[in-house]
């Protein structure tokens, strides 16, 4: 085997450059979206309305949780990742290592993490500290927070969920209590609390129809707020977060058109319609 000569090296570079440019201009029409279960109903609505308006577009939406969506973005099995939390540095590092980009973060909606209670529960408001102690297992009986003398039953999300991570990092600030029952999706959490008079759960505001909502106070002295468009906009509701779309690269072609539409007044109107809160 002969050593490569300079001409061969230059020729190799030229072929590679042509290949790179050719691949870059391949127009992608089919878009896959995966990730946050909190966002799945919104993402499905966006896709449904957009495909009606653009019959050539093909958008496939699935849930699975923010962690699952981010993994899918890194391993290349989805084009857009929906996440109800920010990407972690370790996840960005994986993206760097595999695709040599830092990813593109697009805040596309806002959400207030809502505390669900059974309608018969006497407790109507809780402070962040009480919520932390309840989900960490330090407060175990409703009478400790002004409720009936009954054991508190906890319902939460699986650890692949962005809501699980956000709630843990920003509210619980410790490990969840071992008896916190993990459920696959916010709808399942709402259903479980509906059936359990001593239950408490957390999840996105869009899933709160037909269940008692617990108001949340920053501390003892603060007023209690429910997650509404107004309290979210004014940053009054204490457990407010952005919902994100993550991409590997800056969007082009069909993907850019879709994302521009999501951020347009039409796309943002659907955000409100589905029970979330617009970014602007």
């Amino acid at each position: 085997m002969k050593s490569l000569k300079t001409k061969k090296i230059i020729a190799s570079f030229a072929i590679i450059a042509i290949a790179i440019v050719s691949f870059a201009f391949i127009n992608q029409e089919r878009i896959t979206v995966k990730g946050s279960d909190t966002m799945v109903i919104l993402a499905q609505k966006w896709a449904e309305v957009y495909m009606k308006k653009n019959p050539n577009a093909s958008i496939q939406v699935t849930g699975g949780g923010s962690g699952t969506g981010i993994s899918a973005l890194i391993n290349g099995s989805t084009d857009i990742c929906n996440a109800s939390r920010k990407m972690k540095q370790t996840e960005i590092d994986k993206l760097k290592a595999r695709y040599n980009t830092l990813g593109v973060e697009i805040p596309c909606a806002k959400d207030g993490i809502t505390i669900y209670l059974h309608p018969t529960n006497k407790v109507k408001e809780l402070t962040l500290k009480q919520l932390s102690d309840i989900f960490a297992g330090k407060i175990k009986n409703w009478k400790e927070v002004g409720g009936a003398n009954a054991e508190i039953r906890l319902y939460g999300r699986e650890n692949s969920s962005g809501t699980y991570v956000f709630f843990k990092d920003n509210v619980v600030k410790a490990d969840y209590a071992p008896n916190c029952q993990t459920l696959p999706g916010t709808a399942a959490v709402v259903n479980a609390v509906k059936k359990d008079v001593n239950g408490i759960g957390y999840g996105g505001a869009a899933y709160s129809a037909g269940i008692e909502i617990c108001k949340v106070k920053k501390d003892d002295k603060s007023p209690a707020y429910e997650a509404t468009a107004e309290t979210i906009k004014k940053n009054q509701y204490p457990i407010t977060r952005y919902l994100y779309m993550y991409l590997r690269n800056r969007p082009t072609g069909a993907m850019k058109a879709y994302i521009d539409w999501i951020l347009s007044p039409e796309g943002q109107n659907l955000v409100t319609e589905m029970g979330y809160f617009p970014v602007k």
Partner: protein
Amino acid sequence: MKKIYLFILVLSCLAINAKAQSVEDSLKEQLSEIKDRVNGLDERLLTSESDLSKLTKIKFSGYIQSEFNYYENKATYPSNNFSLRRVRLKATYEAADGVKFVLQPDFAPGSLSLKDAYVVLNDHFVQNGLFKNALSLTAGKFNRMNYEVEYSSSQREVPERSLVIRSLYPGERAIGFKLEVNPQNIPLKLQLGMFNGNDGGFTQFSDTTGKSASNTIENKDYDSFKDIMARATYSFKLGDFGGLDIGAHAYFGSLKSSTNATLHSDYATIDSSKVGDAVKKNWFGAEFQFFADVLGGLSLKGEYIAGKNATLGGSKFANGNLLPNFQNNFAGYYVYLIKNVGKKNQFAFRYDYYDPNTDIKGSDVTITKYAGSNTAKIGSMKSSIADLATSTFTFAWHYYFDDNIRITLAYAIVQNEKVGTNAAGVTNYKASYTNPDGTIGYNDYSTIFKQNQLTIRLQAKF
């Protein structure tokens, strides 16, 4: 007659009522039984969930690199082979939030070795301010703090690390501890570590009698000197376009002298040193990684390292000469250019350079002026082909079959620094090797001889 009918009717009603009562009792009993069963199942489910949650704390990952190599260097026999370059299985156990144990052996045939074995403790005490949950302590055997060292071989874009990194950090790992500060809201990372500092197999001279003992146990300490290492990195985000990470690291190490002299890299300067003194090996490095979203991902990465390295000498009283310690000034660097092509393909190019002795040029190797001026002290030590620099151009193309499988075609063009014409006629400008037929051949360092390498690698990762 009427009385008889009435009696039968009452009797029937009583019988029906008794039966209804019996059915109700039976239903209640069955309901109670079902409730007990459900409660039993609930308890079993909770126990199972508790057991399963423990299992989710254990994570296994790993990779296998199976490859074909073709070597142009005639000193390498056989000239081509199939091999398993790395066979890793990494077990991570998160005992509690912020406590992690990691164990990673390498199962490459014929060389089973323990690569990583460490525990990481994340701070939970600092709950406010800049350093909230920012501190972590790592103890055990783990990668030293350098970009290319810490960058996993399963992700690296060329088959092997740069020569300068392989020379300074053989085996990559060391035994010791590391403190890391990684503030949540600042893209800054500070690392400070302390290690045994003895890496790879080496020969240690145990005392002034010239007795030598081999220590091939990687990372086992044999002196009281500890090596200290520090690294700082900072990340800049350049909007949606990309980002720039910059960093620097410093290494302050020493080896225990086994002799009374230390020869410097010009082969003329000698410092007196006692047996047991510290022979310093200190160096500094600066690094950058630039990521840009230009028609897909592109990155440019590089690092420059320079300083003093050292190897130990020893006594040779039998012939009256002394083999001194050797302390060499060195410099080395590498630059990567990596471009993703679509989702499945990636091109990588790396140029790396390592000069183990910056005080000796190729043209000066073996010239008399650099021969020992004090033979009583330095014996016959002369500059040699070991002081020559090496440049390597590596080209690689990766095809990502899926998330788990990567196929790599890589070609490394290795070029040695040439010795000068003055070296001709002396003996050490050639490296000898034995041909398969038993004859002796030579790699002639007065030329750039063939030593390129082709690698075709299949990597399976999970």
